[in-house]
C-alpha cells in the first residue's frame, strides 16, 4: 500500500525528516510513536502534500504510484486521507456543503458520476449518528464552534464518507477525554478492512488500547529508530522516550 524510502523533508532551512523508511502492507494498521519534535506531524503533512514542506530526497510510493509529484487534491482522489491533529474551522462553508463537495470532487477526479442529493443525504444519515454528529452540527460551518472532540469526530465522518485506502491519523487522541476517545476509536475500527491501511500517529499509548496496531514504530529525529509488535507501545509507556533521547545525545 505505502512504501516510503529514505525520505528527507525540510521546512525552510530546517531538515525534519532525515532518511525515513516505512512500509505499510494492505490492511495493516501501523502506529508511529515518538517524542515531541521527532517529525511525526511533518511526516503526515509531507504525505498529504502540504505546500510548506520541501522533499529533498527519497520516494513515497502509494499503491504503486509515486505521489510526491501530485497535488494534495490528487493524493486525496488517489485514496489518501489525513485526519488533522487540529482540524481547520471554515466559517461560511456549511459542513454538508463541504462533505458533498469533497465527495464529488474525488469522484470527478476518478471519472465517476457525482453522488445524487438523495443518495448523499442517505449516506450521511447512515454514518453521522454513530459518530454522534447531530443534524445541527452538519448544518453549521465546517468545524465552527465545535469542541475538540466534535472536530475529531467530524474528521472520522469525512473518512467514513470518503472511504480512503490509506488513513493517516495525526494525534487523533489529543484533546479527547476517554469517552470521546472511545467514540472516535470505534469509528476508526469500523473502517478497518483488508483493503484499507492506517497510519496512526500518537504520542501516548492509550489510543492504541482502542485501535490495536499490527506494527508499532518509534520515530526519533526524523527517522524510524525501532519497530515491533503492539507490545512495543506498552514498553514505551513504561520506559518513556528517554532512552532514545540519550542515544541521540
Amino acid at each position, binding site marked *: 500500500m505505502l512504501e516510503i524510502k529514505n525520505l528527507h523533508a525540510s521546512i525552510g532551512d530546517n531538515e525534519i525528516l532525515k532518511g525515513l523508511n516505512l512500509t505499510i502492507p494492505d490492511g495493516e494498521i501501523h502506529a508511529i510513536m515518538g517524542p515531541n519534535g521527532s517529525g511525526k506531524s511533518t511526516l503526515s503533512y509531507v504525505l498529504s502534500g502540504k505546500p510548506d514542506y520541501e522533499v529533498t530526497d527519497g520516494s513515497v510510493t502509494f499503491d504503486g504510484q509515486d505521489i510526491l509529484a501530485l497535488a494534495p487534491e490528487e493524493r486525496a482522489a488517489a485514496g489518501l486521507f489525513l485526519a488533522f491533529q487540529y482540524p481547520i474551522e471554515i466559517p*461560511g462553508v456549511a459542513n454538508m456543503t*463541504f462533505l458533498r463537495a469533497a465527495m464529488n470532487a474525488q469522484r470527478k477526479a476518478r471519472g465517476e458520476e457525482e453522488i445524487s442529493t438523495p443518495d448523499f443525504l442517505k449516506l450521511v444519515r447512515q454514518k453521522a449518528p454513530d459518530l454522534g454528529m447531530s443534524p445541527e452540527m452538519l448544518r453549521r460551518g465546517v468545524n465552527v464552534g465545535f469542541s475538540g472532540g466534535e472536530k475529531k469526530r467530524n474528521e472520522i465522518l469525512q473518512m467514513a464518507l470518503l472511504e480512503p485506502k490509506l488513513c493517516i491519523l495525526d494525534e487523533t487522541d489529543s484533546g479527547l477525554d476517554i469517552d470521546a476517545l472511545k467514540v472516535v476509536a470505534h469509528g476508526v475500527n469500523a473502517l478497518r478492512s483488508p483493503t484499507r491501511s492506517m497510519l496512526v500517529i500518537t504520542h501516548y499509548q492509550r489510543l492504541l488500547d482502542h485501535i490495536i496496531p499490527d506494527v508499532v514504530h518509534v520515530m526519533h529525529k526524523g527517522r524510524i529508530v525501532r519497530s515491533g509488535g503492539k507490545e512495543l507501545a506498552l514498553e514505551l509507556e513504561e520506559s518513556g522516550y528517554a532512552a532514545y533521547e540519550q542515544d541521540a545525545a
Partner: protein
Amino acid sequence: MSAMDAPVRTPLRPVRTAAEEALALTLQATLDAEAGQGRIGEVRRAALDAFRAHGLPHRRVEEWKYTDLRAAVRDVPPLSTAPDAAAEAEALALVPSVPDAARILFVAGAFARGASDLAALPEGVAALPLDSAIAAADPLADRIGALSPDRYDAALALNTGFLKEGLTLHVDAGARVARPVHLAHAFPGGKPAAGFTRTVIVVGAGAEVTLVESFSGTVGVAYHANHAMELVVGDGATVHLVRLQEEGDAALHLGTLMLEMGRGAKLNHFSLAQGAALSRFSVYGRFAGTGAQGSLSGVTLARGRQHADTTLLLDHAVAGCESRELFKTVLADASHGVFQGKIVVRRDAQKTDGRMMSKALLLSDAAEMDNKPELEIFADDVQCGHGATVGALDDKMLFYLRSRGLPQAEAELLLIQAFVGEAVEQVESEALRELLMDRMVAWLAKRAA
C-alpha cells in the same frame, strides 16, 4: 449636512479638462432647450452652476481621493435618445430576471414604455415616468432634490442638471406589497451613450415593499450610466432594496442613493457591484425619525483593471436609531476597491447604535484596497464602532479543502463564496439571496476560466 461636515477644500483650479468643457456645454445646451420654468428648471440650472464652479472631482478633493474622476473621464459620449423596439428587446436580453417581479425598464437612460409593466404594478404601488410626473405636477416630482446632500457631489450635480428621465414611485401607506418591483436599467448596442436617470420613491407609513434595481450593458462599450435615487422610507415602513450593478466592463457607472428614514422606519439595503470599468456608488442616508433601523450591506467583485468605489455618509440626526453596515470586497488581478464610510452622530442623537465593517479579500498582489471608515460623534451616549480588514485567502483553509480532494480553484471558490455569503445573509428574501449568489458565482466562474 451642516458646516461642520464641510471638508477643507483646496482652492479650485480654473483649469478645465476637455471632458469638463464638453459636459458643461452639453448641459448648457440641454438646459436652454428644455429646462423651462418652475422649480425643476431652477434646480437644474443651480446644478449647472455648481458643476461650472467645481467640475469633476480629483485626488485633492477629500471624498474622491481614491477615485480620480477628472482623470478617469476623458470622453463624454452623446446623450442617449428614446429607444426603439429593437433597442428595448436588446436591452431586455441584458437584464437579469428577478423572480415574480413587476418590471420597469430604462434603455440607455430613457424610459421604455413598451417593456415596462407600468399598468400592472402590484396593488398599492403607483408609478409615473418622470417627464409625465413633472408635467402633471405630481407631488413626488416636487420633491426632486429634497434629499440632496449639502456637499457638492459631481455625479449628483450632473444627474440633476440632465434631469429629465426617470420615475416617481409611491407606495400607499399600510400597503404590504408582496411582489418585488424591478427597476431595470440597460445600455444595449455597440455605440457609447450617456444616460441620466432619477428615481423618486416615497414609501408611505407602515407600508412594506421590495425594490430591485439592476444596471447592465454591452461588454466593451464605454457608455456612461448616471443614476440617482431619492428614497423616503415613511414612519414605520419597511423597504427591502437590492441593487445589482452589472454594467458592461468598459462602462462608467455613477450611482447615488439619497435616503431619509422616518420614525421607526426600516431599510434593508444590499448592493452588489461587479461591473463597469469605473464605478462609484454614493449613499447619503439620513436617520430623521426616532427608532429608525438601517442595514446597508454589499459585495463588490472586481477584476482586470476595474475600479469600484462605495462611499457612505450616514447622518444620525435624531436619537435612538440603529445602523448596520457590512461590505465585502473581492479584488482579483490589478483591480482597485474603495470603501469610504462615515457615520455622523449629531448632538441630539443619543442612544445611537452604529456599526460599520468593511472586509476585503485580495486575490492578487497587484490588487489594491483603500478602506476609510470614519465616525464623527457629537452625542455622548452612543454605541458606535467601525472596522476594516484586508487579507488574502487563508492557506490553512485552502490546504484543508484540497486535502479532501477539492481542486485549488474549487477550494478558492468555496472560500470566496463563504466570504461574500456573510453579507448576502443580510438579505431577507431567500429568492433574492439565491439570485445574488447565482450572479456572483457566475462572475467568479468567469474569473477562474
